């Protein structure tokens, strides 16, 4: 029965995923001479405020239920059905928007742009999953994230990835969140939304490339479970930080671990930590690790400065993502393009009445912001790198099999493997 349910879920997920694979490109309208008037393009009304608050309530409800199912009920099946609901509601019904992952950019912009007012619902979407994570671990990832849901449902034959690969890939989300904050702070772009690989699938429309990327990630996810969550998700960085301090995190066993090792390979995300091998954790090893830990700790400021300096060198390149900088450089390099009537950006600029001097001045200000921003970004990445290197030399003592608080998505699969609650 359980297998049949999984198959049904899979079937449904694939149906939805592929049904928009044939997303069409726009075809130019025919030119009529019969007096037919092309209808004006209409813009849909924004979602009513009450419905936005309803979304918040749904989010709270899903996370609360997920927390209940994980902590109290210990029901993997319940989480599975909640995941399906999330996929339907936040994914296909709400088209993947609003979501806490993208809200990072709204919050950033609200901080750096005094003219931008963030709505309370977006702020709640940003904060609530973090608050839940601080108390109960990543309940949002478990069942309330549509991006996680669509990937979780296609995990078929997960393979274990060596720890050094996981740790190395773990650096990427920091780069992504850093760039996302930089771009949002400078008013350049919302890259998290622009490069959301699944939103095209949820909306059944989008560029071929993005839909293709989404499908590719899902295919990869058959074997490398939840690749976006583990390798890219910028919000996962924040959730991981919160979850590390969670007071009541999911546990594999409801009481004392009997070290049966049955759960060892149950986690498709390699987020279960084994008990410490006492042969490894010798006194000499602890001392040696402590020395390395201190050395790498002292090097952290070096990484910060090095990272700041190196990344700041890319500010010219990165700032070109801003439309004003791009346009001004384009017109400086190719002034003849001013007469290109087919370039809508250039024509819009020319018709705006703004002078070239003004445009370049504005672009120079933005480039200056990027210079500062890339120093901060590089410093942050240097700090993260330094801390990650330090962490490699921590030898913790563990007696039981436990979920890694930062990396665990609280999906509950490991609970099913644990014989303790069934036996005792």
């Amino acid at each position, binding site marked *: 029965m359980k*297998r049949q349910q999984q198959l049904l879920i*899979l*079937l449904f997920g*694939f*149906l939805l*995923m*592929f*049904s928009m*694979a*044939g997303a*069409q490109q726009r*075809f130019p309208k*025919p030119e009529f001479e019969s007096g037919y008037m092309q209808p004006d393009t209409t813009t849909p009304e924004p979602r009513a405020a009450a419905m936005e608050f309803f979304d918040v309530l749904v989010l709270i409800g899903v996370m609360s239920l997920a927390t209940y199912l994980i902590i109290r009920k210990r029901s993997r099946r319940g989480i599975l059905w909640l995941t399906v609901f999330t996929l339907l509601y936040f994914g296909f019904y709400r088209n993947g928007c609003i979501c806490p992952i993208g809200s990072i950019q709204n919050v950033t912009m609200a901080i750096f742009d005094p003219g931008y007012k963030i709505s309370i619902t977006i702020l709640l979407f940003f904060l609530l999953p973090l608050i839940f994570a601080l108390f109960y671990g990543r309940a949002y990832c478990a069942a309330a994230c549509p991006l996680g849901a669509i990937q979780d449902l*296609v995990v*078929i*034959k997960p393979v274990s990835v*060596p*720890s*050094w*690969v996981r*740790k*190395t890939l773990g*650096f990427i989300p920091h*780069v992504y969140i850093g760039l996302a904050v930089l771009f949002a702070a400078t008013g350049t772009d919302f890259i998290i939304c622009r490069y959301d690989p699944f939103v095209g699938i949820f909306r059944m429309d989008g560029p071929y490339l993005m839909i293709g990327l989404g499908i590719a990630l899902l295919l990869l996810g*058959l074997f490398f479970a939840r690749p976006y969550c583990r390798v890219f998700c910028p919000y996962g960085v924040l959730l991981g930080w919160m979850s590390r301090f969670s007071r009541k995190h999911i546990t594999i066993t409801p009481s004392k671990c009997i070290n049966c*090792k*049955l759960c*060892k*390979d149950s986690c498709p995300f390699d987020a279960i930590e084994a008990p410490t091998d006492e042969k*490894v954790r010798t006194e000499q*090893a602890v001392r040696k690790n402590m020395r390395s830990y201190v050395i790498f700790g002292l090097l952290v400021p070096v990484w910060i400065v*090095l*990272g700041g300096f*190196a990344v700041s*060198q*890319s500010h*010219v*390149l990165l700032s*070109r993502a801003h439309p004003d*900088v791009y346009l*001004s*450089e384009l017109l*400086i*390099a*190719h*002034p003849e393009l001013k007469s290109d009537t087919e370039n809508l950006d250039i024509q819009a600029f020319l018709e705006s009445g703004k*002078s070239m*001097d003004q445009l*370049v001045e504005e*672009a*120079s200000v933005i*480039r200056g912001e990027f210079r500062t921003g*890339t120093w901060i970004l*590089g410093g942050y990445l*240097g700090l993260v*790198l330094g801390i*990650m*290197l330090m962490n*490699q*030399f921590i030898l913790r003592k563990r007696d039981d099999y436990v979920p890694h608080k930062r990396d665990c998505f609280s999906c509950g699969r490991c609970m099913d493997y644990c014989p303790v609650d069934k036996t005792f």
Partner: protein
Amino acid sequence: MNQQEKIKLAKQVMQIAGIFTLVVAGLLVINFIQLRKYEPLESETLNVLVEQLKNDPRNDALKEEIRDFDLLVRKAYFTSEWQVRTGSILLLIGGILFAVSLKVYTDLQKMIGLPEAGGEHFFAARNKAWRWLLITGLILFGMAFIASYYSTNYLENYFPESDTEIAASTETGDVEIQVLEIRDSMDADMQQSSDQSAGTDTSGAAGAAEESEGTQQNTQADAPEPEQVYGIEEFKKQHNTFRGPMGQGISYHKNIPVEWNGAQGQNVIWKVAISKKGYNSPVIWDDRIFVAGGDSESRIVSCYDRLTGQLLWEKRADNIPGSPAKMPNVTDDTGLSAPTMAVDGYRAYAIFATGDVIAFDMEGNRVWARNLGVPQNHYGHSSSLMVWDQKLIVQYDTGKGGRMLALDTKSGDTEWDITRDNHISWASPILIDHKGQIQVVTNSDPNVAGYDIQTGEEIWKVAVMMGEVGPSCAYSNGLVFANNEYASLVAINPEQGASVQWENYDYLSEAASPVAHEGLLYLATSYGVFVCYDAKTGEQVWEKDFGVTLYSSPMIADGKVYLMDNAGVMHIMKADRSGTIVSEPGLGEASYAIPAFADGRIYIRGEESLYCIGK
């Protein structure tokens, strides 16, 4: 059905579904590529029909034909779309079958086994982890650092439009006079006597020998409005382009000195240090002489008083939109300022290896500047400018292919811009007046070609050249002469149906351009042999081996051939069938430039200094 049979069935279904999915996916990819490659609305037929309709807007039959064709391409498009959609559904079915069978297969095989012993070795995994983390971080920082070398900050190169005029006017006073030596005998009568010798029209734009400031004012005040378009006769009075008027290597000035000693100051009227290095040659308009120079710091144009050597102005060619912040790679023997300037009495024009073209008026005010795109040139751009009838001709053959432009001398706007069917070249265009038509004649690999200067339309071309073409063409008595090392020396009748009249392979030049005059053709090889041919037959008349590298091109002036060798010695010979050496005066420093002539004087650019030589 037992467990093993179920596993077998699941495996077979998985294999079939996998193959089916792959085949459908492959077909979809092919279909997608075809859709991209043959965009229906990009149909040439449709475009041709639409163009026809523009010329004949009342042709109802044509309209109907376009509608039918439009409908057809739309049907084709939507049929392809249907194929994509159908394929997607098939792909979906195949994908689902594959995924479900895979899931069943793996679940059926899954058994609660004994926990595996071993796993990763803690320290080995940890060591690998921190090393890879370090590598990743360093790669990321390295990429970010390298990005700075591949990103030009165009904003820094931007020169505010509102500041252009102010900057240009304030720069005028920044010149530093660098006259090293002025001969005592120079006096005010010089202008009068020299005018008589060359027949210069002293009522011209800047004819009087006055103080430089006064001269500038006169130039401004006397400038005809609208601008006068000078013809051949006026150009013959000047030395306004590479190799003199029209670039043919012939000067029409008389009483040119044949004796001097640069090191000892004999017959040196003045000598000034040149600010920046450049392999370009001096050009002259009336009493002003111009040279350009450049290095990675800046590119400049310098204007001197031809009579006194006083530096009148020196301006930078900077803040040009599109100009690269990082200089293109050039070799030392070409540099950033190899092309010779052009001057037309109203403005002086310069081009640099950056692709920057700039025009200053005679007072040194910037008139216009633009960048033609950084030329892809492994030595450095060296084709000199030519000017005629308010058109500035730029031969712009680069690694991307052949190109030639005519720019409006007043505004820098493109008058015509043609793509030429040839490879990169380093030769300069020359102008010829053939049967009443002014042609731009170019030498390149593989074509020697002539173009209508008004339209840029190709009149003739002959594919006879090869290699890295450096020498420009010569012209005399209805024949164009072209050559290049490892190719051939040819004489061509420059008109429609052009053909090679004669060819010779004995001596070929590498850098120096040939010159033809009164039935003789002179050619300087880079290995020091100077040869005279009969221009009509191609037969050799005489040859001289000077044993020194010859990069500068010979000039004909006052019935003599002036040939500068790389060591700075001028070989002066009679321009006749005897080739008698008249004298061989030395400059005292190396020289690669072509001498300029005016009013009984010769102007030579040495490696370090600019010389005025006369009696």
